[in-house]
């Protein structure tokens, strides 16, 4: 019994650590065709300034991954074997999908950018890991803006 408890504890530790260490997420906007700006400088050669927000409402964009798993115990004729089973899933709507159709005369400004990583464990039974990057996206008017050439 002692060996089983030690084995299960070791499995709980290694599985939660390994799976938790593998979960990561990132936010980018590689498919969006207008600037998606972070920080106060809106353009090359410009000073930090605030532009007028467009009529479009603020959108919430995020990228996130969650992983969870349970520890199972397979009863064999020789011993009770601890194993683990887990799954991961995508949590949110990324900027590429939400902002793709932004008009080419506007820019997008990100505010309130947050990142979090969090993990919960119930030793020997359950673990969960969550990583999220999220922000509020606002369309801003760009005076004299032109569209990219095709």
């Amino acid at each position, binding site marked *: 019994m002692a060996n089983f408890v030690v084995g299960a504890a070791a499995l709980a530790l290694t599985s939660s650590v390994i799976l938790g260490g593998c979960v990561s997420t990132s936010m980018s906007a*590689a498919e969006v065709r207008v600037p998606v700006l972070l920080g106060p400088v809106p353009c090359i050669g410009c000073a930090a300034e605030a532009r007028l927000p467009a009529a479009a409402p603020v959108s919430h964009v995020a990228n996130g991954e969650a992983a969870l798993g349970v520890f199972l115990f397979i009863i064999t004729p020789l011993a009770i074997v601890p194993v683990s089973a887990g799954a991961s899933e995508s949590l949110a709507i990324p900027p590429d999908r939400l902002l793709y159709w932004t008009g080419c005369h506007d820019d997008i400004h990100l505010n*309130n950018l947050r*990142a979090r*990583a969090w993990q*919960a464990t*119930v*030793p020997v039974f359950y*673990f969960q*890991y969550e990583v999220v990057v999220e922000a509020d996206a606002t369309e801003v008017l760009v005076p004299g803006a032109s569209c990219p050439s095709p």
Partner: protein
Amino acid sequence: MSVAVTARLVLFAALAASGCAGARVNVTANGARYPLSLSPVVRDASGRPYDARSLVKVGWLDVRKTAPGFVYAALTIPPTRDFSDEINAQVAAAGGEAVVSLTISVAGGCGWLNGFPILNALPVWPGCAPVRLTGDIVRRRNIPP
């Protein structure tokens, strides 16, 4: 000791030792002196957009900061991490005018800390959130430095 009693003890011990840890941090670049775009596009002062065809990559931005959290991720000290100084230094060193394809990542590098069984049941046990900003440092083609 019977199997049932042992199972109850294991269950009680597991629940008593259950916990969580992590951190949540606000990411800012309020002091950045260059435009930072998560897309491959950035504009000049006239509103003209520049993309990969009209920009040349002169460097690679890579800034990492780790925010520690306590009390089951409810308290992060400090609650905001500003990346401006590192961004300004790297862009200036590369002779760039902007950063495009900026990516904000949270990696699992803190998994061992956030998920450490038993100890993460303690509110004083630290968690963390490792934040990394990467991107292409660029300048306009045919524009002399």
